[in-house]
């Protein structure tokens, strides 16, 4: 049975698109911009996380050990630190691992690491602090305590950034998130409105369908599809915009660096997840519009 149903739904949904191109275009645009913003925000998060994970996860800290510290000594420090009540976990990282992580984190700055010959980096300890009320105080206490240990060269926590910088970055992130929520809500409402318009525009047709014994889901499905189509087209728009932005970033920055902070060649992320997100958003919108319509 399914086949003729779906052909029918699709034909009706496309017909609806043709009949009311303006509202449909508006909702494609809004969904597209929403997803574009989402993409930019996620890229921002991603970039920050790559460069400074302890900015987003304040419980993360790193202890750099002095040059020439033996593995055994390093293990000793690790055991000591792991035993402190402030610390949730502490892992040892060899100089090799530290270098690889740096390379990975500052992808694109390969030039920096070239010609170094022998790995000049000290071994390090990656620490996860316990989350508590007074994180600031906890970090300070942890730094003082760690610096007092003999093999320790330096300690890096979120406190290493000035409190002001940190607060400002968090504010920007928070505002970005809030804006995102508003955008998402707007997209859903706009799609809902467009679908509702389409439904009222085809009241006569719905009436005919009721009379010939079509089920409510049969009546509603073309409208759902119409909404989802708007979402997917919006996502395609967003993906194209993000791709273009990436190209522009690539044109301005040296290619290796651009690849580092802009991972969007043509990944599954861009062309796979974004359309799914668009479909999800518009499905919610269509659902909102059709919930109370087509009563029996």
């Amino acid at each position, binding site marked *: 049975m399914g086949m*003729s149903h779906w052909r029918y739904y699709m034909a009706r949904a496309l017909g609806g698109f043709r009949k009311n191109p303006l509202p449909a275009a508006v909702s494609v645009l809004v969904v597209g911009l929403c997803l574009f913003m989402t993409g930019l925000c996620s890229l921002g998060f991603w970039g920050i996380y790559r460069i400074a994970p302890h900015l987003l996860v304040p419980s993360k800290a790193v202890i750099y050990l002095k040059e020439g510290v033996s593995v055994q000594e390093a293990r000793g420090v690790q055991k000591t630190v792991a035993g402190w009540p402030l610390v949730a976990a502490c892992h040892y990282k060899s100089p090799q691992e530290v270098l690889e992580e740096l390379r990975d984190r500052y992808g694109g700055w390969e030039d920096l690491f070239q010609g170094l010959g022998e790995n000049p980096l000290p071994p390090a300890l990656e620490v996860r602090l316990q989350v508590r009320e007074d994180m600031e105080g906890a970090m300070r206490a942890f730094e003082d305590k760690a610096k007092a240990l003999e093999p320790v060269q330096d300690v890096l926590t979120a406190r290493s950034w000035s409190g002001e910088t940190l607060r400002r970055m968090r504010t920007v992130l928070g505002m970005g998130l809030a804006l995102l929520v508003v955008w998402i809500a707007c997209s859903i409402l706009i799609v809902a409105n467009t679908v509702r318009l389409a439904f009222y525009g085809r009241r006569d047709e719905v009436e*005919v369908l009721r009379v*010939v014994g*079509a089920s409510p889901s049969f009546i509603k499905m073309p409208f759902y599809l119409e909404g989802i189509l708007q979402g997917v087209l919006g996502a395609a728009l967003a993906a194209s915009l993000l791709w273009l932005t990436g190209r522009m970033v690539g044109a301005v920055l040296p290619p290796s660096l651009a690849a580092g902070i802009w991972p969007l060649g043509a990944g599954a992320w861009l062309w796979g997840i974004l359309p799914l997100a668009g479909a999800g958003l518009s499905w919610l919108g269509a659902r909102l519009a059709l919930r109370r319509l087509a009563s029996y």
Partner: protein
Amino acid sequence: MTSVPFIQCFHVAKSYVAGEEVLRDANLQVFKGEFLFLMGPSGAGKSTFLKLLLGLEAPTRGHILVDGRNIHRLSRKEIPAYRRKVGMVFQDFRLLNQDSVFHNVALPLVAAGRSRRWIRSKVKSLLQFVGLDGKTHVPCCRLSGGEQQRVALARAVANDPWVLLADEPTGNLDACASAVIMELLKAVHARGTTVVVATHDASLLEHLPEARRVHIQGGIFYEEAEAAAPRFPSAMGGPVWE
């Protein structure tokens, strides 16, 4: 032969506006295979009654039983299946005007979940039955009124309904086109389908003088002294259009 009426209405009342009853105390029994004219002046409540039968409106009081079931107690899920068993033809055709003849006639079959092959052959025989097999792919807005009503009739009988309800089926047609529609209604009836035709046009009766006539006035049904009508026409094999 069963003697239980197929459609039973008990003290049905319907008012759209409080205090104004379109139907007051309508009682009616229709047997399977009957051809019934529902006569009455404009505004008498003929369309209202047909809408009640189709479950498009609910009665304010009373009960309507079709095939033994109270149709206003059907669940939301049962209503579409019920409507497929009751075909309806409207005075204003109610076709999807931009769509082809084929699409309009196929609509109830698609809604019923039939396969594409089944739909194609069924629509073909339906269009042959109403004499429109030459216009399968013409959009309905380009058909004459009589042709549009034939499309509507083909759509109404697409799912082989138990009952065919026709609300002023010839109201917008000239005498010649009306005669064609009446012949088709008779053919549907001859195949065993119960047919109810609502009309204020007494000249339609000439096409089927032996049919049962019920008048509606003041919200009440009155039986007209009937000619000895054969209420149960003998079954004539399968559907005429097959």
